[in-house]
Structures are given as C-alpha cells and as structure tokens.
C-alpha cells in the first residue's frame, strides 16, 4: 500500500463517483465514503420525477449495488462529519470519533433552502431533496388532495407534474412574473405554463407567499395580495444552499461554493471538492460558477479522483441539464448567461416540441430542447467544440 487513506465526505452523486474513480485511477490505499442518509448512494434527479410519481423504486435508484463497494474495498460509513482538523490531517465525526486522512474529498452537496415565513414549521410542509423527503411527501399526500407548491423552478414544476400524476389537485405559486424566470427565455417559460395549465395544474405568477396557516398541520397558503389558497400539503422548492460550513470552518476558501481549480483542488492541495458544493472558475465562462448538475458533479468527481492519484485531468465538459414533466423531456446544453438573441425552431405556443437556441454575438452558447433530442445532441457538440453555426442550420438541425 502506498497511497494511504482517502476520505470522501458526502455519498451522493459526486462522492459515490469520486470513490469509484479513485479505484479506477489506481488508488491502492483505503477509501472511506462517509454519508448521512443510511442508504446506498442513489440517483437524486428521479426523486421529483419518476420516483415521486411512483414509477420507480428506491432499488432502481441505487447508483451501484452494495457488492460493488465491497468488491472495490470502499468502506461506506453512515456518519456526519463535525469538523476537519487540517493540521492533524483528520476529520472529527459527530460523537467525537476521529478518522485520519492522507487525502480528503468534500462532496457535501447542498440542502433545500428553507422558508422563513410564519407557519413554515407546520407539519405538512415539505422540501424535496432526499429520498426521506419524498417518503414524507407521499405520506402527506394520503391525507388530502390539495397540494400547493411554492416555487416555479425545475424542482417545483417537476413535482407539480408528478403529484398531478398521482391524482392530486396541484397549485404552483411563483413570486416572479413567470416560471423558470432565472433560467430560460420568455418563450420557454410560457410553454411550461401552458402545458401545466393544460394538464389542470393552477399556476399563480407574481404571487408572493406571506404566511402558511393552520393549527398544527398546514391548511392554507396566504399570499401578499390577501388571497388564501387551501392546502393539505405544501412543497417548497425555492433552491438549494451549498453545504460549505465544514470547508469554511476549516479555513478553506469559500465563495458561494468551496473554491476549486481546474483539477478540483481546493485552496489546500490535499483536499479536493466536487459537485453542488463546489465553485469552479470555468474558463468557458470566465467566471466562478457553482453548478447544480449531476453530469457536472460526475465530471468534477472524476477529475478530483485523478488529481488525488497524481494523474493530470482537468474539468472542461460543457454543462448540461435535463427535466421531465408529463411526457415532455427538456434537455439543456450550456448556460445561456449573457445571450443577446434567441432563435426558435418550432412553435412553443402550439407545439409539444421545439428548441430555443441562445446566441451571443452570433455564436451558439446554449439551447433548451423540448422533446428534441436531435437538437440537443447537435447543440451540445456545436457549443462544446465552438463550431460556427448559421441560423438556417439551427432550424433544420433536429428536424425529423
């Protein structure tokens, strides 16, 4: 044995991939994967999609079976880390136990941002980040039919579609003037509002929630304009906050996320970070970005593992995302920040498939592809490789 002990803090997408990649990259010492959910690492994206809608089981969500970790000699430990003692090279677990490390990986992810309005702690108010969260939502959904979802982002809208599939009456409340305002063009927001309304989901935009009402269990959602929406359960999807406290307390550089370089190294080169908790200066965008994306977590984890093993790899993949709502699959290539032109292929007002291409100074920088996988594949390649594109090509790329 030459490598010593690698400890991975956090056993979701990034942590599970990082531990596996350590073996693939040749780490011959101990690998310890610390998680606090008492389950094998599992896929998070389906939680608000197929899993909530009852179309898949926890076993199907498991990223790798238990035998994999045994065979690869990856020790899965159910524990929370309380602090990192960099001077002594060890982590301190809750309860006081310490574990020495030679290399450390922070894959601590994020947590659902909490509501801080009156009534937020009533029972029947849920968040959606973990398997346990979904179990609670399912239980609540047995007690009444009226679900109010606070937040019209991807999580909120996916949850709306899934709860609608379960037969609930669903209302989405969004503070901004349109759903998905932060992430998509006007036309894409309008499309999603339409398909949800067509399905029978009520959407209130420009609606600020002032309080949740109820004695013990939530009974209503009060809006700033005085309206009150009846609710048997409330699901809050207003974004996540990165779990960076451990890193910050240990004196690592944190700027929104744990700051990492192209090799996924933090400001301490014995410590790497990957996933939702990490903030990476992306050469492609010329700024530090904390991505909340499974593919990105996977890539950062692979790079981080290579780095710990002394192999030279850099983070460079194009970010991409996907979202399933009803029978509509959205695939997003690239980040649209700073676009100055939108080109539409198909008609989002009447069709069920279209693409919205984002250009800056004539160059394709991102694409939202709705039921248009061909456009997505085309866009991802074009953007990743910086290929020139003419508008006519955009309009025919994914035509079937």
């Amino acid at each position, binding site marked *: 044995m030459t490598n010593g002990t690698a400890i991975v803090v956090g056993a979701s997408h990034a942590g599970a991939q990082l531990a596996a990649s350590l073996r693939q990259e040749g780490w011959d010492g101990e690998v310890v994967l610390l998680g606090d959910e008492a389950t094998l690492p599992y896929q998070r994206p389906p939680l608000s999609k197929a899993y909530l809608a009852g179309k898949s089981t926890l076993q199907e969500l498991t990223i790798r079976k238990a035998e994999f970790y045994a065979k690869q000699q990856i020790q899965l430990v159910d524990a929370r880390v309380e602090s990192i003692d960099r001077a002594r090279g060890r982590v301190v677990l809750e309860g006081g136990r310490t574990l020495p490390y030679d290399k450390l990986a922070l894959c601590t992810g994020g947590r659902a941002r909490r509501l801080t309005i009156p009534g937020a702690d009533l029972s029947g108010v849920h968040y959606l980040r973990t398997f346990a969260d979904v179990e609670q939502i399912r239980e609540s959904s047995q007690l009444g039919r009226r679900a109010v979802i606070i937040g019209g982002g991807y999580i909120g809208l996916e949850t709306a579609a899934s709860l609608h599939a379960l037969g609930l009456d669903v209302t989405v409340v969004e503070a901004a003037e349109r759903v998905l305002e932060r992430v998509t063009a006007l036309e894409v927001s309008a499309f999603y509002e339409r398909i949800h309304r067509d399905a029978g989901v009520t959407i209130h935009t420009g609606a600020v929630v002032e309080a949740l009402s109820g004695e013990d269990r939530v009974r209503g959602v009060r809006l700033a304009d005085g309206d009150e929406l009846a609710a048997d359960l409330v699901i809050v999807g207003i974004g996540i906050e990165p779990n960076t406290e451990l890193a910050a307390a240990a004196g690592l550089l944190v700027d929104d996320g744990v700051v990492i370089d192209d090799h996924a190294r933090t400001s301490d080169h014995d410590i790497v970070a990957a996933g939702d908790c990490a903030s990476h200066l992306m050469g492609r965008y010329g700024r530090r970005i904390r991505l909340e994306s499974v593919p990105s977590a996977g890539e950062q984890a692979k790079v981080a593992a290579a780095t710990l093993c002394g192999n030279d790899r850099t983070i460079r993949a194009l970010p991409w995302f*996907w979202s399933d709502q009803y029978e509509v*699959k959205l695939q997003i290539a690239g980040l649209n920040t700073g676009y100055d032109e939108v080109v539409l292929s198909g008609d989002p007002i009447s069709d069920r498939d279209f693409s919205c291409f984002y250009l800056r100074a004539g160059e394709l920088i991102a694409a939202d592809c709705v039921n248009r996988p061909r456009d997505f594949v085309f866009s991802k390649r074009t953007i990743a490789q910086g290929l020139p594109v003419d508008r006519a090509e955009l309009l025919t790329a994914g035509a079937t």
Partner: protein
Amino acid sequence: MGVVTFVSHDGEKHEAPLDEGQSLMQIAVDNMVPGIDGDCGGEAACGTCHVIVDAHWSDTVGLSEPVEEEMLSMNPERQPTSRLSCQMRVSQEWDGLIVQLPEFQM
C-alpha cells in the same frame, strides 16, 4: 452467469458478468468499464452510454429503438448497430456478447 465484453476504442477488452435483467449500462457502471458514463442514470437523456454492437450479435440483441435513435442520429460516431446501453435489458442468451465503445461519448 454469462459474460459480456466491452472493447474500448483502442482495443482494450473489459469483461463483465452478464447480470440478467440489468441494463447493459448498469453492468458497465458496476464493473467500472472505462468509457461508459451513464450520466443521466438510464433515461436516454444524455447519450453517454453509446455502444456499437458486434455485427454478429445484432440479430440477437436487436437494433436501436426510436428513443435511442433520437439521441444517436446526430452522433458522428454512430454506426448501423449503435445502441444506448441503458436501453438494453440483458438476457441470458446474450452470453458472449461483444460491444465496441466509441472514441468519445456525447
């Protein structure tokens, strides 16, 4: 239990046990076959589990389904027997199956 062989673009072979009922992508992930990413976890959303089925095996395992076709058709490494391995449910008759991996995944 049978065996499936993944052949990387540079000719390196990776054998994995044929776990009936699993997807071929899951088998690759469980056995750390390099070159199969499976970024989306098997939803045919990412195209990072592309394999090219050995021509002799094509009749047995079948050609790509429409959902795969959507993701494969714009892929420059696409071959007539290309599949997304996440959509391939492994059966015991596939013992000895050989698939090639592309140079690059999506």
